[in-house]
């Protein structure tokens, strides 16, 4: 399946099917640091993604130290 990462923009090919939570951790993200979006909708960790899915993993951590 196609995995889209934002800032910096990056596209990865990952073999499916897999669960959202597993995909996130297998790519080395902490689950609290990202949101996963499929077809414009948020999905929870237990959702199974088919091999032909297109998935956006969006980091939610901002850097400002004020």
């Amino acid at each position, binding site marked *: 399946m196609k995995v889209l990462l934002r800032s910096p923009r990056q596209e990865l090919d990952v073999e499916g099917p897999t669960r959202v939570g597993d995909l996130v951790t297998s790519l080395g993200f902490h*689950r*609290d640091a990202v949101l996963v979006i499929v077809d414009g909708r948020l999905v929870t960790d237990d959702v199974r993604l088919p091999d032909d899915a297109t998935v956006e993993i*969006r980091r*939610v*951590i*901002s850097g*400002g*130290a*004020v």
Partner: protein
Amino acid sequence: MARRCRVCKGAPVIDLRQHNAAFCEEHFLRFCRTQVSKTIEKHTMFDHDDRLLVAVSGGKDSLALWDILLELGYNTEGLVIGLGIGDYSSQSTQTARRFARERRLVLHEVDLEAEHGFTIPGAVAGSSRVPCSACGLSKRHLFDRVAREHGFDVVVTGHNLDDEAAVLFGNVLRWQTDYLARQQPVLPAGDGFPRKAKPLVRLGERETAAWCVLRGIDYVLDECPMAEGNNHLAFKDALNALEERTPGTKQDFYLGFLRQGFEHFAPPDAEVSARAALAACTSCGAPTAGERCPFCRLRDNAARESTPIELGRKDH
């Protein structure tokens, strides 16, 4: 078994491991509003008669904050500051403008370069100053100033639970007791400074981002390039590693500090009132302990740095 919304058992859009709960869209949005109104009330931050100045950066936190405050019926106007950090700053201003325009809100703007003759990258070039410290100082100064000039009762910022937990972590690692004594979600007005409030301290940044996605709020996804590699990000990462193992760690750490830790660092009232009286900055009139306030010193140094005569000063 698939997770279900804690409230209605419908299909969930988000799971919040720290609350051991999942929510559908409607009940997640309600959960966020409740967390914010609870925070506002618990810390008596402001009420519906107060005029609020929302510090807006175009990022997920400040836009979610403004949106939630509007939903809760507060009287708000926004302020965006042009920091001069390349594309990031222009995106930030444009996004804030669009948000305000679409909702017919009042957005104040201050541009550092046009109005004060310097940018954040310019102010730190050739010095060992950390960009975020120069930037934070400038933002606080300008929020205060606009609030004073326009008669706002309180400046509200979008600091979230992750921000506060990371700052607390940093302050504890270095035992910065003076900072710990001031790390509160609301700071009263005084000495010519307006009240400051952080109504999002019970929401994590994953929640503020989800709020924006679900509400169709277009926010700046790109990170400020000057944040790269700073300690704040490293602290967040460390806390998220702990959170991964034990959901709820960040919340317990920060809310536990407010409940049980803070009182050990807060100065006694007598000490607060005995604090050195502030005078007006000779250059801009802002209250300050020195002759010129830190913002004016930063600006004047930046002006000096940008004259090309001085050489050999890259000593960091």
